[in-house]
């Protein structure tokens, strides 16, 4: 059994409610934090090595220390609960089952950043979760952890829950900010980063749900102790949402020292592939990271065992590696068609492009169309090269990384499964239409 810092209490009956949560040691980190200075809290988070769990892995403490503090301008903390990357459903699990853990982390982070009004932006489809969060907020407030003069500290804080309305792009932090301002979710050009100019042009820190929940063990244990869990720059624990062709889909907390192979086959985690089938491929970090064939998933190109952490998953770069991303672990067995799976992802990105940049707006549509042709047996050999060409022209030429996110899965599928694309071109009569 690996170390559990977030989900250790997830199965305690009634943990969703304040009394049980508090009895189990909840809100201790707030008690501790309120006795510290905000700068010291930021220092602890820096020491912990905690990296953003939304996908980019940017060090949380460093981001907090970058927040601008112009005289007389309010600052805000915004929790990114937009979770829409295919394969990713870990934040939902935290919010549904451990709402107080998130609220606790939000209070500590709000105090450290000086946010008196903190917003949770949650995807609109998670329509039942705001009720759970609001109940937790009300309970916290009734017990003096939110509102005016929290626990006599002189610090005031309110947390509000805002629902999106169906748009993947609103998970991108600047699109999220636009949406929170009541606009279309069109990403802004960075820099300026939100830490300098965010919601209503005020300094804003946007952090993922899991990052903010992880602040609780960081403060409880101290940054130094937290940093001892894991390996290298992959400190602490990570939630992985596992899905696809595995025996035990679900959300798992791992310490980042286990191997990918153990994660897939151990009964503690995915429990192997159903019906004795072989694993064909895996997208280890949410739909936008490169797909890996089984041989590169379990071993790096150098022949070393691949581990479930930031460094090891990206070992070999895009040629032979992938990324930890958002922790959405998608497994495909030997019966799955990589072309078809990639087509569903291409359709996803075409549907979700905000349309501001032409390479992304047009390119995602072209990629979907060509993939559809290949998949249904109407493709030509030159289409495979054309597809490669289009994804190259999108990557790096857009305002936000959604363009890259759309390009990478297509590139990796061609890189590692070109024979499968060619098979479709050569065997049109065998393609299902």
């Amino acid at each position: 059994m690996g170390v559990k810092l977030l989900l250790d209490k997830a199965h305690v009956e009634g943990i969703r409610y304040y009394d049980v949560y508090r009895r189990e040691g909840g809100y201790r980190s707030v008690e501790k934090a309120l006795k510290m200075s905000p700068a010291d809290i930021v220092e602890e988070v820096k020491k912990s090595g905690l990296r953003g769990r939304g996908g980019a892995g940017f060090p949380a403490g460093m981001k907090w220390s970058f927040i601008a503090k112009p005289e007389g301008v309010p600052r805000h903390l915004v929790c990114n609960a937009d979770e829409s990357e295919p394969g990713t459903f870990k934040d939902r699990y935290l919010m549904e089952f451990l709402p107080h853990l998130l609220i606790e982390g939000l209070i500590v982070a709000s105090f450290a950043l000086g946010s008196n009004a903190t917003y949770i932006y949650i995807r609109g489809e998670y329509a039942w979760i705001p009720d759970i969060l609001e109940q937790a907020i009300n309970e916290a407030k009734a017990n003096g952890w939110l509102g005016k003069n929290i626990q006599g500290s002189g610090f005031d804080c309110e947390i509000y829950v805002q629902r999106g309305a169906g748009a993947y792009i609103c998970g991108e932090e600047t699109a999220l900010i636009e949406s929170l301002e009541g606009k279309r979710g069109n990403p802004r050009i960075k820099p300026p980063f939100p830490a300098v100019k965010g919601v209503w042009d005020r300094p804003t820190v946007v952090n993922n749900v899991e990052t903010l929940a992880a602040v609780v063990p960081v403060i409880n244990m101290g940054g130094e102790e937290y940093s001892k869990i894991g390996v290298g720059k992959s400190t602490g624990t990570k939630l992985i949402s596992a899905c696809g062709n595995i025996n035990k889909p679900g959300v798992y907390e791992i310490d980042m020292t286990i191997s990918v192979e153990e994660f897939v086959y151990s009964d503690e985690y995915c429990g192997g592939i159903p019906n004795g089938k072989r694993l064909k491929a895996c997208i280890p970090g949410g739909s936008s990271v490169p797909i890996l064939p089984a041989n590169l998933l379990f071993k790096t190109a150098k022949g070393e065992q691949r581990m479930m952490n930031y460094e090891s998953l990206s070992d070999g770069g895009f040629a032979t590696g992938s990324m930890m991303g958002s922790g959405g672990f998608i497994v495909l067995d030997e019966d799955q068609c990589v072309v078809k799976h990639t087509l569903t992802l291409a359709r996803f990105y075409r549907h979700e492009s905000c349309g501001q940049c032409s390479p992304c707006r047009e390119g995602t549509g072209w990629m979907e169309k060509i993939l559809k042709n290949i998949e249904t047996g109407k493709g030509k050999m030159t289409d495979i090269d054309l597809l490669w060409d289009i994804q190259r022209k999108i990557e790096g030429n857009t305002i936000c990384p959604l363009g890259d996110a759309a390009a990478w899965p297509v590139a990796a599928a061609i890189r590692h499964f070109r024979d499968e694309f060619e098979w479709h071109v050569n065997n049109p009569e065998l393609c299902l239409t």
Partner: protein
Amino acid sequence: MSQFSEERLAKVKEIIARYPDGKQKSALLPVLHLAQEQFGWLSSETMDYVAGLLKIEPIEVYEVATFYSMYNLKPVGKYMFEVCQTGPCMVRGSEDIIEYIKQKLGIKVGETTPDGLFTLKTVECLGACGYAPMMQLGKHYREHLTKEKVDAIIEECRRNAAANN
């Protein structure tokens, strides 16, 4: 007429109070959700009403209502089946579920049954990939779908509709 009840107007006020003075436009998405809850969809009359409530231009409301996929710009059935079709759900059999619903309700994707009860829609990943295949039905998710489960859900909707009439 598109008008909020007193209770909903109080809720709008409460939402506006969450933002700094003069930033009431931030309430737009939540208020459109409230409007859709009440009227089922967003007519231009409703959107104009919302613009008035928030003291913004109607175009600012249209821009937003057309951008987000959850806002209905035309009437939909009483029960909307929104079935996820993205990769992780596809590998767990979402296509069969969509086919089955089509056949069972006698409609294509995007259509509403003649009695106005059911609309079938395909959607992209809803964050339930580990519990696939799945669909959204109103406020909640229905997960681990099978043909039997789909039958039961349709029955349940028919019963609820009959009970509410």
